[in-house]
């Protein structure tokens, strides 16, 4: 067919030489109120047919904007500038709205970041998948249904005919994501822009979607994959571009970037990923706040341990570390030493000076820790992992175990689900937790983890079963809140979303102070204030935050405040419900480190809930695996990881993405 875009339609496939997509010097700014937001700065990359380029970087680094610019939907009050922006030989910058429309969906597909809301809830899945076919008139009216079914089947949606008639909300997250991908590829585009296609999904589902993308790529689809998670892209990307502050700070072949990160940010990012191999080792490299960079400086300067004056005022020129591996840094790490091991910090930079916490604080150690990923590059695959992995220096392997602190027996709790039927959220759950011990709980969404936590916290009464805490009845069996109240302070919680757990009107001081107030250390306002300051210090926050309100804190700071509050009453048990899943990897790493430190120092027991095995692996002593409200497996953490007994556990383990694996695979090539 002859379309409006020369070179895109009509021409023989691959008839145009050169890469499918060329982005050169892309610059996007937004006008927000009176301010200009420079979202994307001088970004350049190219993508070949059938190739997969992954863009990684933390929240707000400009990944999505880049993707949307490539499909002409930058949106808002944006200004897009580029030296070159071409797709299959067509200059995208010159396209009119009408010609853009012919490209969208037909030649370039976009899978939006938020899969769960990217399908129109009022239209059937089939209608959405059919939309590109209808808009581009690619199928006759009576063929559409068939094509939709085929496409859905292609992306691995079982029973496609029925699914097509359903509405998005009737589909599970994974199916919805597939349907969204189906709608993006239905018209047979040659480039797919996939913006965080797996973020909201359970690990097992995530693995399936990644498989799907891998397959599509094998079928010749070029893929621009966006993620904030290196582990996700590791197994699929040919090349990786790391974005920070709108810039591509490092880019190159996947295995090279993963193995030999040259940019400090990439290094930090890699170091922060908890994997199944980093147990009890320090994840994050603590970096004191530094003065931010000027508008022309390196945006990472504020967080960079290597930053100097030049970094703050001047943007480094693009440099090739290796052929095809570019890095944007005044202080790039050198090429890896021939042994294949690397410690990028030691040779080229002096060790970091003491942070503001002093050497006594949990982060005081200036001892640099090599990125764990690199260290485990040669570690044998998981199944063969020896029972004792090498702990980082100074970390106790074991915490002394004490009495049974928490005794949970036969808990059940039902809720009325949609449709009015009663569903078991928790079904006959029993376990014990000893003083000073960390019990990890994993399971996918809806498996009842939070419900267990709420029952343990005494916020929800079980339908059956009992909870005993330190030997006294705590919940179930007609225990009243009145009886519980005096002991409440001994069990504290750290929630997934710290912001929502703070009264928005309270300052940090009042938030933590409220927890202090009733404690035995009753005293004057001053005493309380001092105690709050000590607590903040304990979690690595300065007293300068006392007067702040939660909204004015960063995510990591908020979680620390939450932890400080939970520690204030000196609890014997800390219940952490997904305390890190809302955080960026690097911050997540800091919090995990902090929790590990605290537990070591204070000997507090923890019930640690996560859907992320890698995270649990990082902190847990023992492990419960939950599914559909039941405990399907439990045991010593290492035992379970080494020899998962239940098929579901095995499935979970197999689905965990491993950046190191792909790196090693790439090397083996």
């Amino acid at each position, binding site marked *: 067919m002859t379309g409006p875009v020369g070179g895109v339609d009509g021409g023989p496939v691959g008839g145009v030489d050169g890469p499918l997509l060329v982005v050169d010097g892309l610059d996007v700014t*937004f006008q*927000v*109120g009176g301010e200009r937001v420079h979202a994307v700065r001088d970004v350049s990359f190219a993508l070949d047919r059938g190739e997969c380029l992954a863009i990684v970087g933390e929240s707000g680094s400009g990944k*999505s904007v880049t993707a949307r610019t490539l499909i002409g939907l930058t949106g*808002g009050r944006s200004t897009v500038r580029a030296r070159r922006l071409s797709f299959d030989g067509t200059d995208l910058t010159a396209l009119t709205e009408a010609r853009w429309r012919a490209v969208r969906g037909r030649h370039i597909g976009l899978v939006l*970041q*938020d899969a*769960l*809301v990217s399908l129109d*809830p009022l239209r059937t899945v089939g209608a959405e998948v059919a939309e590109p076919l209808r808009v581009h008139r690619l199928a006759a009216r009576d063929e559409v249904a068939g094509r939709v079914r085929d496409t859905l089947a292609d992306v691995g949606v079982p029973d496609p005919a029925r699914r097509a008639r359903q509405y998005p*909300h009737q589909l599970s997250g994974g199916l919805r994501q597939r349907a969204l991908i189906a709608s993006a590829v239905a018209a047979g585009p040659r480039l797919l822009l996939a913006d965080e296609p797996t973020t909201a999904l359970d690990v097992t589902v995530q693995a399936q979607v990644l498989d799907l993308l891998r397959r599509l790529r094998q079928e010749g689809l070029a893929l621009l994959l966006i993620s904030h998670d290196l582990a996700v892209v590791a197994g699929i990307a040919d090349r990786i571009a790391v974005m920070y502050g709108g810039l591509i700070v490092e880019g190159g072949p996947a295995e090279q970037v993963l193995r030999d990160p040259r940019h400090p940010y990439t290094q930090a990012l890699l170091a922060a990923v908890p994997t199944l191999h980093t147990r009890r080792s320090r994840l994050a490299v603590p970096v004191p706040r530094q003065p931010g960079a000027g508008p022309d400086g390196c945006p990472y300067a504020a967080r960079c341990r290597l930053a100097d004056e030049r970094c703050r005022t001047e943007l480094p020129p693009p440099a090739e570390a290796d052929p095809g591996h570019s890095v944007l840094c005044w202080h790039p790490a050198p090429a890896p030493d021939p042994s294949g091991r690397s410690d990028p910090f030691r040779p080229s930079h002096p060790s970091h000076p003491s942070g503001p916490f002093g050497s006594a604080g949990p982060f005081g150690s200036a001892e640099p820790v090599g990125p764990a990923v690199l260290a485990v590059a040669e570690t044998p695959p998981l199944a063969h992992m020896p029972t004792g992995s090498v702990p980082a220096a100074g970390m106790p392997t074991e915490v002394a175990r004490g009495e049974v602190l928490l005794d949970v027996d036969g808990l059940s709790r039902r809720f009325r689900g*949609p449709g009015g039927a009663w569903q078991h959220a928790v079904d006959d759950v029993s376990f014990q937790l000893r003083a000073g011990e960390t019990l990890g709980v994993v399971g996918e969404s809806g498996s009842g983890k939070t419900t267990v936590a709420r029952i343990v*916290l005494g*916020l929800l009464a079980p339908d059956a079963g009992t909870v005993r805490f330190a030997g006294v009845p705590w919940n179930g069996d007609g225990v009243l*809140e009145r009886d*519980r*109240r*005096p*002991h*409440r*302070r001994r*069990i*504290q*919680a750290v*929630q997934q*979303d*710290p*912001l*929502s*757990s*703070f*009264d*928005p*009107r309270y300052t940090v001081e009042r938030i933590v102070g*409220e*927890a202090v107030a*009733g404690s035995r250390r009753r005293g004057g306002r001053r005493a309380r204030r001092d105690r709050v300051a000590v607590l903040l210090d304990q979690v690595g926050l300065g007293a300068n935050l006392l007067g702040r309100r939660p*909204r004015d804190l960063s995510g990591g700071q908020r979680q620390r405040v939450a932890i400080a*509050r939970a520690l204030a*009453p000196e609890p014997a048990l800390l219940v952490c419900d997904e305390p890190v899943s809302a955080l960026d990897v690097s911050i997540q790493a800091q919090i995990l480190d902090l929790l590990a430190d605290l537990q070591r120092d204070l000997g507090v027991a923890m019930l640690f809930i996560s859907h992320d095995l890698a995270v649990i692996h990082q902190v847990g002593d023992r492990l419960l695996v939950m599914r559909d409200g039941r405990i399907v497996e439990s045991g010593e953490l290492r035992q379970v990881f080494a020899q998962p007994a239940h098929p579901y556990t095995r499935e979970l383990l197999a689905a965990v993405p491993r950046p190191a694996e792909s790196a090693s695979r790439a090397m083996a090539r």
Partner: protein
Amino acid sequence: MTNIDTRTDIDAGTGSSPETGGSPETGSSPGAGIDTVLTGGARRPGPRGWSVPRPGVVSVPRPGVVVAAAVLALAAFVAAAPGLLTDAAPTDIDPVHALAGPGAGHWFGTDQLGRDVFTRVVYGARTSLLLGLAAIGLAVAGGVVLGLATALGGRGMKRILTWLTDVTLALPPVLLALLVVAVLGAGTANTVIAIAIALIPVYGRLVRTEAMLVLRSGYVEAAVGLGLRRGVVVARHVLPNALGPVLVLATVGFGTALMYASALSFLGLGSSPPSPEWGLMLSEGRDFLQTAWWTGVFPGAAITGTVIAVTVVGRYAQARFAGRVDWRAGR
């Protein structure tokens, strides 16, 4: 849709899908949407990833907000110190100069008894604003009691109060106010009571929704986890946080109250003369629209201007507030 009324109606128990940005309320009870009307609907931020900072979320451009705030400030000033703007008394009659047109001596002209319309509008600000404030204050106070009782009460109490709210919400406020006036009789005090009663269920519902949200929030759980008593939790966290959005909405409701008051005055059931009250003046002036337009036009402009200003400022405040309250819903 506004933040408030799209939240799942708790008692209806029919959860809307959590992942949607603007899923409609289900099992809506009578009165759903009244909040929207009061607020005019400030925008909720989109779901994660698209919540772009947009300062101009109000449907009124910023200069409008400034002008509106200035108008309000003026009205408040005038109400506080009418004597500064005019020497005359609002009830001084001067039959010789009755119905004189606007001019140097009388900026807004004079009315049927020769009273200076400007002076009356100025003094009317106090009566009208106080009337509006009293009505909305009563409505909010009643709403807080009703809403908190509904949110905190036991199952039976909850049922009964919800039902009562439903019943009153099923009656149009004007009709409800008329009914109250029919029982109590007309007059300024009764106007206030009538308007308050007509609005109490609206605010009651609002407070209930807010209180339920706060009750389910992480920080109330945290407070409970600290072993605080229920009363302490309610006083420290639930009430202050539930009140915020309600107070913001009350600004807009203030305008509504003024309008209802003038409607009652028009129907001859409002405040009693000779107190200068805008609605009353407007309604007295309507017979002179053809012969002495100034007797009605100026009080009318005062009402419209104040209500617009209050609405604009209230909505702006609400939009500013929206960001604050949004995450309290736990999203």
